[in-house]
């Protein structure tokens, strides 16, 4: 029988993979994609809690909707920033973007 | 009349026959699901064959030619000849292509095109899965066709393909927004995203009467979503050869073609369901009405193709964002106010 624990386990593994990506990727685009993975893991948790702990109210799903909204805004701004950085500095490697101003 | 010839009745009869041979009712259910899936795939592949011939005949009619008339009576077997020709073509993979992505792209394009068919109400109760998010499922699935185009464009290792892929993203993502907003007006009126409820709400008045602006916006955006002229910039042959399809030959190319016609059928079905009353109609059985209306919509799309010249890419983008999007938003506001006034007086 598949229960809450199974979904939480999947979410934990995906979150850890995202964590690994954030810490180890070289390009900003890769880091952004890893952050997306982590946000998705959180969403799985929210919806799993909503389904198994409080199935009669949909608070968890509402929360997930707003997480998705924030993630969309984050991707939009993040992508625009990456585009700008590449335009100005000609690189998207996180290690080479080590100055606060130039 | 409708009670005897409806698709649901036919399914009931079939289920009764199966019930005689199979002991377990669960097995009968599984068999019926398999039959339904088979029927959907038959419809998709048959439409492609029929629509290729229809498109040629319609274009000939528009240009006062006679069109294909050699193979079979009146040229009806022309599509079969085309199919055999495509199967006999050599399969060429471009040098430097990203092998797996290049092979997967046409197959992946076909999956969402086929997956949307499960929520189409062909007749009263004749719907494979009557999801409560029906129309939203269609939107989500049809938006998935962006990535395969981009994959094909990128993996081909060809500058024209890549430009075509980039154009797909710009065009499809831009036109998806007004399309969703135009459908929203219908959802507001019907009060549900379930396909059967939307059709049932049009028993007396078709939504095209109540939502004329939404219909116009939907038809224009749908033409752009399925990459047909005048919005076929993705594969504009005078500019970028054939866009993402440039490097594909034979059956791989035919899969793109199949998906394209499946998409044409899909948007026509959605237009019929949302705006033209679905299977509602007097005298004739529901599915006959349904296919008549779908045929009318397909003819309209073909009419567009052979009447309007192709837009430029900058015209396309500014038309989508500066004309269609405000129009769709305005439609939602007007619909809301109209519903409020209607409820106030009744």
């Amino acid at each position: 029988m598949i229960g809450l624990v199974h979904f939480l386990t999947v979410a934990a593994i995906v979150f850890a993979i995202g964590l690994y990506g954030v810490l180890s990727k070289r390009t900003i685009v890769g880091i952004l994609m890893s952050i997306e993975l982590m946000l998705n893991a959180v969403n799985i948790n929210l919806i799993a809690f909503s389904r198994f702990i409080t199935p009669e109210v949909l608070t968890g799903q509402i929360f997930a909707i707003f997480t998705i909204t924030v993630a969309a805004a984050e991707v939009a701004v993040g992508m625009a920033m990456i585009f700008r950085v590449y335009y100005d500095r000609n690189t998207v490697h996180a290690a080479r973007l080590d100055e606060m101003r130039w | 009349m409708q009670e005897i010839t409806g698709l649901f009745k036919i399914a009931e009869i079939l289920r009764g026959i199966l019930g005689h041979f199979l002991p377990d009712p669960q097995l009968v259910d599984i068999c019926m699901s398999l039959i339904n899936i088979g029927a959907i795939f038959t419809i998709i592949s048959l439409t492609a064959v029929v629509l290729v011939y229809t498109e040629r005949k319609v274009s000939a009619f528009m240009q006062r030619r006679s069109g294909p008339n050699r193979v079979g009576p009146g040229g009806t077997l022309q599509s079969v000849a085309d199919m055999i020709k495509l199967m006999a073509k050599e399969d060429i993979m471009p040098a430097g292509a990203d092998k797996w992505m290049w092979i997967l792209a046409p197959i992946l394009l076909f999956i969402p095109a086929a997956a949307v068919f499960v929520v189409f109400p062909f007749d009263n109760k004749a719907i494979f899965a009557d999801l409560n998010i029906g129309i939203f499922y269609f939107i989500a699935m049809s938006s998935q066709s962006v990535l395969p185009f981009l994959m094909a464009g990128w993996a081909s290792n060809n500058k024209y393909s890549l430009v075509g892929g980039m154009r797909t993203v710009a065009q499809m993502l831009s036109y998806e927004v007004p399309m969703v907003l135009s459908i929203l007006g219908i959802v507001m009126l019907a009060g549900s995203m379930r396909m059967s409820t939307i059709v049932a709400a049009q028993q007396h008045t078709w939504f095209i009467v109540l939502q004329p602006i939404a219909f116009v916006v939907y038809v224009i955006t749908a033409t752009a979503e399925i990459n047909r002229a005048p919005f076929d910039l993705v594969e504009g042959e005078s500019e970028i050869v054939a866009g993402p399809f440039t490097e594909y030959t034979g059956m791989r190319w035919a899969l793109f073609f199949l998906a394209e016609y499946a998409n044409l059928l899909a948007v026509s079905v959605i237009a019929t369901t949302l705006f033209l009353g679905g299977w509602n109609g007097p005298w004739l059985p529901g599915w006959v009405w349904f296919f008549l209306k779908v045929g009318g919509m397909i003819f309209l799309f073909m009419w567009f193709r052979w009447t309007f010249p192709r837009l430029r890419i900058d015209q396309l983008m500014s038309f989508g964002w500066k004309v269609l999007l405000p129009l769709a938003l305005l439609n939602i506001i007007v619909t809301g106010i109209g519903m409020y006034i209607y409820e106030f007086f009744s």
Partner: protein
Amino acid sequence: MNELIYTVAFYIFAAITVAAAFGVVTKSNLVHSALLLALCFIGVSGLYVLLQADFLAAVQILIYNGAIAIVFVLGTMLTRRSSRHGTNDTEVNIPSRVVTLVSGLFVVVTLGVIATTPWHYSSGVIVEDTPSLLAQLILTDYMVVMEAAAVLLLAAMIGAIVLAKGVEE
């Protein structure tokens, strides 16, 4: 019968999600990573369907995979075709063993917490018609939050346009 199908479906979707997520961080080509991310999101939406959040599953596919297309385009624009490999490399300066260890430790700790927590399962009735209930909640109880999200999206849109196009000086 139904329980068996549910179990099999869960393991298929879970395997797709985890394997694709793993591919996202290990592939050295940005475009491949982006496509695997799309596959991962499809797996996640399958899990949502199993959790009876069908509306959210559709939202997930529609919004996230639209974003993936943009990532894909950026990945192709910001990398040169000639250097097909190494557009999404892993950092070599940081000892990758430490990072792996940290992530692995995180999984172990989290699984331990999940296993030892006494969960209070509710036997309440599962909401069937989620879209209408979600709409009611968003437009009544969570009205202010929705307005805030709308403002956030507008700000993000304007910010993104200004950032990408650049202000005329």
